[in-house]
């Protein structure tokens, strides 16, 4: 029992779970009805679920999918991709430009999504090649696309903010008639299961960790380290395309300046809050997903407390610092030592 507790206390998930729990308790104390879920009828006449929990789960969708991709990149390449927001703007622009060139039907949406996926993967290959072949730090390598990406999106859109409107897109962005759960949540669940299956039935997860922990010994064991790194950037590319397309469906237009602005920072934060080391190696996708939901829950809570939207960042920063201090290894060790001392003291006294 004590051993199990110790294991739990050392687990990287304990601090994020505790933070999420505290956020929930805080909200319950502030407003008992905060987490009530109700069935309402929306403008289109569908019966849908609504409530703060649903809006947190729904709103975090893009962040969750990006955090999953970012975790893999972080684990394999020991660095972060800071160009995901810019790449998502490009993917979204491709998505919109294909849709606008054709009559919007389900096959066309699929084609548009595939096109944006391919473009996003190509940019992933660009970043991945710089990182894997030229041995450039990921953050520096992706700085190139970070500074040029939104301009490329601007160029694709011809300087405008084109809109797309179709009931099919609204279905993807909000609700499918007859299903009360928001579609982005369903997409995230499907993606999550797919990625879990891939990691469960292939060596990808193991190899990624091996490359992140020690690239040299991974290579000596016959793992193609450069390919694993490239692959992680390509997977992030797919995640970027999914996130970009969901966001476009949600708002019905593409604005190269504001689409998923600063999302790279939030995605990296989600990875770190989930207890993953930003220095690569071992990773936990569940941790990153919880991290993403913590960030979204925090944002929703602050908005519910009527904090002005521009000042939200300051409060967010304080909570983030508190979480990372708690999950820092040194503080954890100190806490464990303190606990051991407190438990051992009575026994020592009786011995003497």
């Amino acid at each position, binding site marked *: 029992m004590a051993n199990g507790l110790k294991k739990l206390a050392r687990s990287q998930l304990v601090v994020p779970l505790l933070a999420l729990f505290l956020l929930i308790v805080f909200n319950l104390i502030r407003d008992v009805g905060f987490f009530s879920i109700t069935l309402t009828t929306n403008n289109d006449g569908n019966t849908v679920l609504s409530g703060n929990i649903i809006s947190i789960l729904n709103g975090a969708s893009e962040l969750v999918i990006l955090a999953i991709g970012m975790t893999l990149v972080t684990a394999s390449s020991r660095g972060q991709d800071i160009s995901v927001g810019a790449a998502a703007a490009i993917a979204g622009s491709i998505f919109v430009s294909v849709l606008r060139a054709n009559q919007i039907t389900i096959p066309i949406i699929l084609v548009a999504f595939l096109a944006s996926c391919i473009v996003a993967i190509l940019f992933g290959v660009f970043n991945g090649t710089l990182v894997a072949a030229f041995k450039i730090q990921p*953050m520096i*390598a992706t700085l190139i696309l970070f500074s*040029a990406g939104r*301009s490329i999106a601007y160029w694709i859109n011809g300087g405008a903010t084109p809109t797309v409107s179709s009931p099919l897109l609204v279905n993807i962005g909000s609700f499918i008639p007859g299903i009360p759960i928001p579609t982005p949540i369903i997409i995230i669940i499907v993606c999550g299961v797919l990625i879990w299956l891939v990691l469960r039935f292939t060596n990808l997860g193991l190899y990624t960790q091996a490359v992140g922990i020690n690239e040299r010994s991974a290579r000596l064991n016959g793992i193609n380290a450069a390919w694993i790194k490239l692959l992680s950037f390509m997977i992030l590319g797919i995640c970027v395309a999914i996130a970009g397309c969901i966001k476009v469906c949600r708002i019905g237009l593409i604005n190269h300046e504001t689409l998923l602005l600063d999302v790279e920072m939030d995605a*990296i934060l989600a990875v770190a809050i989930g207890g993953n080391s930003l220095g690569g190696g071992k990773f936990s996708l569940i941790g990153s997903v919880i991290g993403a939901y913590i960030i979204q829950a925090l944002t929703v809570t602050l908005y519910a407390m009527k904090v002005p939207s*521009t000042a939200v*960042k300051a409060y967010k920063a304080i909570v983030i610092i508190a979480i*990372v*201090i708690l999950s*820092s290894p040194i503080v954890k060790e100190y806490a464990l030592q303190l606990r051991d001392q407190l438990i051992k003291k009575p026994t020592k006294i009786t011995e003497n």
Partner: protein
Amino acid sequence: MTKNRGLIAGIPEKKRREPISNTSLLLRITICTFIGMYVLAMLVWGRGFLNPQQFLDLFNNNAFLIVIACGLTIVMMAGGIDISGGGITALVTMVCIVYLDDHGGSVPGSLCLALGIGIAFGLVQGILISYLDIQPFIVTLAGMFFAKGMITIVSAVPRTAAQETFLALKQFRFEIPGIGYYGKTGNFIPAKIELGVIVAIAIVLAIAVILKWTRFGRNLYAVGGNKQSALMLGINVKRTKFYSYLLAGLLSGIGGYVYLLHTGAGDAANATAAEIQAIASAIIGGTLLTGGVGSVIGTLFGVLILKTITSIVVTSGLREPYWQSITTGLMLCFFILLQSVVLALREKGGFKLQLPEWMKLKSKKSGTDITPGKDLT
């Protein structure tokens, strides 16, 4: 340790010439690129580029960026990263203006406030990163968020300075004797620089001296090059890292004041993306994010290159805003690849293309001495 191979390698007695270190090699590449670029711009586009005032305006407009980038260079050389510079700059401008206008503050008081904010950020971030071992990216990201959030808490609307002493200071210009240009009416207009430029240049020189000739500066290179061997040499790694963040925070505070001296306005949109531009300048200037290599002189030229590219793009008629960021991206790509290739060539004992004689000799000599040290990293 391979990075410092040039410094350690045994040199035959006949040839006293020291092999060039990575830091100075990258610095020379940067300086040559800048001079080449500017001369090319003068020859091709003439007019504006021949005007000394336009050259000095590069400094006038970007003095704050030079100051922030210097702080970032120090942090990057020690193997860390600091992305809170832009946020602190904007916060300092807003706080100082509110203090000057609403609370009847004096100019020295506002200067102390700016330094205090910078030091406070540097102190907290430094303690969290070096003593609690938290990832620098996350801590400074939170610092940036905090600074940007605080701006709107201090004042929700953009402000402009109105205090007279401050405005007098802001209007102050140094005339450089002997350099100038002829206006349209034919009269000679001397070239001018702002107060902030002098501050920025002084800071660049001071930090260059610190890095070259003080114990702290040499410790920074050692810690960034290889943390473990620095520790074994008896260097206090944690304290060195702490001081690097403290100094970066202080310089961000000074950068904020320099920005205020240039624009005289407090706004949440001030210095947007300055941290990214500062990182880009440091990289172009030859600082490696892995640490151990870099110089502030290079960073100064990095800023100049970054801004010259922008003005070349505008002058050559590509006025669409996206060309600037695309060329910035291409420029970065070029420099990053160049550095990667140059360093990879040197690591393998190559680089025979340009300096065949003594480079070959060095690589043979040092090949056996240094390679085992590679395993430490």
